């Protein structure tokens, strides 16, 4: 029982990061039907920014906002440089474009920075635990969950209560009609990328704190988790993306603690296989989004 509670806390902590990543993927998917395989690169770029700040002597309290700012700027820059040229292209083109961007950024770091691992110190509170009723909780998990909940709350407010949120939701519903109603496509797409970048930035803070390092290929795993979580949730649904993130985190932790040691390394493989099964039985994900085709 205590192990289960610990697992759940751990899973929610991990899932929080996935939820933030998945939400970012879903926001962009909503406005331009682009599945952003370059989403993980936001973590790579902020990772190098964090490394630079670290060797310059910044503390984590300064590095954290820097990471978010860099992620937002990178997200907008990627949209301006690459994605705006394929805005109305078929889905096939969009998929491969973002795949190409993923490789370009990775290769650029490889060529012009270094293939080597860049390490930095993790904050000292990250490994601390505290005890409630005989159950050990990691401080880190609690902080991650709390910050994620606050972020999700703020995002909800932004989407529900502001003009920008309204136009974003309208664009996600029907982009062409939204434009006719006076939503400015440029602004709403840039806004979506900024929001997606901000969410990735907050995820990046925790991802980097836990990893304590970055490499040119560091974006791959977070990208995959974010994309998968968004897909589990039902692509296009923001609520589903968040649920998908938490579900993925919980599934990973619960599996890892229960699989026999000899194949514990296969956790990701088993999780992917489970996701494939989920699709066979519920192809549309947790939350069904009506993509009615007009005939």
């Amino acid at each position, binding site marked *: 029982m205590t192990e289960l509670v610990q697992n759940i806390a751990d899973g929610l902590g991990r899932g929080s990061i996935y939820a933030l990543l998945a939400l970012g993927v879903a926001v962009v*998917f909503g406005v331009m*039907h682009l*599945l952003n395989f370059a989403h993980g690169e936001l973590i790579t770029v902020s990772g190098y920014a964090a490394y630079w700040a670290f060797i310059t002597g910044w503390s984590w309290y300064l590095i954290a906002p820097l990471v978010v700012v860099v992620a937002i700027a990178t997200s907008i820059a990627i949209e301006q440089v*690459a994605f705006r*040229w*394929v805005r109305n*292209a*078929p*889905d*096939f*083109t*969009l*998929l*491969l*474009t973002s*795949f*190409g*961007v993923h*490789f*370009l950024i*990775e*290769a*650029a770091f*490889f*060529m*012009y920075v270094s*293939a080597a691992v860049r390490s930095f110190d993790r904050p000292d509170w990250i490994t601390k635990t505290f005890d409630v009723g005989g159950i050990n909780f990691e401080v880190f998990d609690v902080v991650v969950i709390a910050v994620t909940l606050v972020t999700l709350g703020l995002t909800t407010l932004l989407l529900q209560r502001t003009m920008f949120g309204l136009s974003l939701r309208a664009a996600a519903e029907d982009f062409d009609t939204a434009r006719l109603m006076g939503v400015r496509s440029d602004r709403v797409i840039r806004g979506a990328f900024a929001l997606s970048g901000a969410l990735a930035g907050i995820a990046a803070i925790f991802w980097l704190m836990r990893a304590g390092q970055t490499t040119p290929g560091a974006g*791959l795993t977070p990208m*995959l988790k974010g*994309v*998968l979580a968004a*897909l589990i949730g039902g*692509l296009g649904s923001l609520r589903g993306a968040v649920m998908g993130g938490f579900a993925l985190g919980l599934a990973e932790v619960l599996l890892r603690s229960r699989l026999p040691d000899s*194949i514990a*390394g*296969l956790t*990701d*493989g088993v999780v*992917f*296989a489970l*996701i*494939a099964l989920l*699709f*066979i*039985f519920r*192809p549309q994900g947790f939350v069904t989004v009506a993509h009615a*085709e*007009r*005939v």
Partner: protein
Amino acid sequence: MFPDRRRDLLFPTAGSVGLFAVLVGGALIYAAVLGGSAERLITAMFIDAIMVIGIQIYIGNTGVLSFGHIGFGAVAGYVFAIFAIDPERKARWIADAPAGLDQVQVSPIVATLIAVAVTLVVAVVVGIGLARSGAKSGAVAATVITLALLFVTHEVAINWTQLTGGNRAPLSFGIGDTLDSMLPILAVLLVAIVAARLFAQSRAGRLAKAAREDNLAARAMGVDPQVQQMAALLLSVAVVAVAASLRVYEIGNITPRFFFFEYTLLTLVMLIVGGRNSVTGAVVGVVVITAARELTRRLATEGYELFGLSLDAAAVDWIFREGLPTIGLGLAMLGFMIFRPNGLMNDWELDEWLARRWLRPQEPGRPTLGPIADGAAHSRARLEADGLTVDFGGFRALGSAGIVANVGEIVGLIGPNGAGKTTLVNVLTGIVAPTAGRVLVDSDDLTGEPSHEIARRGLVRTFQNLRLFSALSVRDNVEAAYLIAEAHRDGRSRPSIDELIAVAGLWDHRHRRADELDYGNSRRLELARAAAAAPTFLLLDEPTSGMSDAESLAMVEQVRTMAETIGAGVVVIDHDLNFITGICDRIYCLDRGAVIASGTPDEIHADPTVQAAYLGTAAPA
């Protein structure tokens, strides 16, 4: 299997041999001139070519983007290595492999066959997942599933060390045990090219391409895309599995990163640059990318003498670094996606070019229509829709609507915008599931059947917003539907493809791509394509929308002739009252999801409730 033996069997085979000859001839001359290292280069290029052709069979014919084919390659590569490497060497890396696999050794050919078999089993499972996720051109969920497959195989390769040796111990052949002849590679390459071309021309390939162009329209013609996608996947994976086995055998070992992201990127860029919809394109892409990589490699290692200009090494140092190939591939992918998404060759094929020059001049002239098909034999068929109700959330689009139509009759559906006309046709053809009600053709209950099944049983529609198979020729559009009729509408005598095209007035345009047609001709093609599916009832959704008055009048004649030619009943939706009253025997008027009046055109004209619905005056009590 092959609709036209000369066009679909003879020419593609000959063209593929030609393509093979050009590729291999060119490469061998290059190797002969440069000697030594060039041989390794072209061997690798041939294997890449087999791999890319394998991937093309799936992506090209279905339009589904797959990142997972190299994952299939990983499965095949490991199975091949585990079965083909001698036990003595295996004992070093995977001494305690499960199921005594460390003791097994078979010949490379048998090992390849085992690899293909195992990989096909995986492909069936993945294929079911893809089908369930709604795989179609550009489908995002399907692509993510293939990406997950790539990661699963990689994870397994790294972590299941008892079987694969993982990262630290590459499974390797003994020195001298590896492939030392180019012949097997060339043989497989030839077979792969021929197989890819024949599949594209086959019935399955033609239907897959129709579904690639428009999944919904293909289903409405009676195509079940999942079947063709599975066929394409299995053939494609078999080719990839052989290529992977050859690659492992040629290199002499396998590690997890052999079949992962880098190789996925390389093969996909080759396919995209050449043109994913063409086998020739796949080959061209392989050659272009191989040449570009070789050129940069030589520039980087042997200095910067380019066309007699010698460049300052320091000045270009920032370009020629490790990692350049990846940047180059990424840029190529981005550039082609933005500026030329269909690649260098688009859908050009050597054999089609040859066929245009040789077969076309021999084509028979415009057919004159013989005696009308056995329309009379079907004249008793009756379409009965009863109590159809559709709720979209809280909105009732149809409330207990019903119509009756007989073969030999043309029945009109009119009503103001939003009356539920298109929804009614959508329900009849299985695109929207009704909340309640029944659809019968004679005693055949079609309610709740999937679209393609309904089309095969005799209800075929056209689309208000034009859903042609854009990249296919006019004739190929009609042929796709015709192939379905051939298999599923057997009892009916059918006019030939050419006759249908002639009746629709598209004879002079038959070789043009559907997306090159003007509006009126596109509408006529919609009609011809639906008629080719040999329906008992033809459902036309606004066939004159966007047409001029003269064109509408011509369309009246065309619809009539077409209906008589194929012996079908017609249900037609239109706003154009001249058209409707000019063509229909009976008319139903819908308003707010219910039938408010029915009768002959004259009765409908005189009906006060119809006038109220159209003009908005209060209906008399």
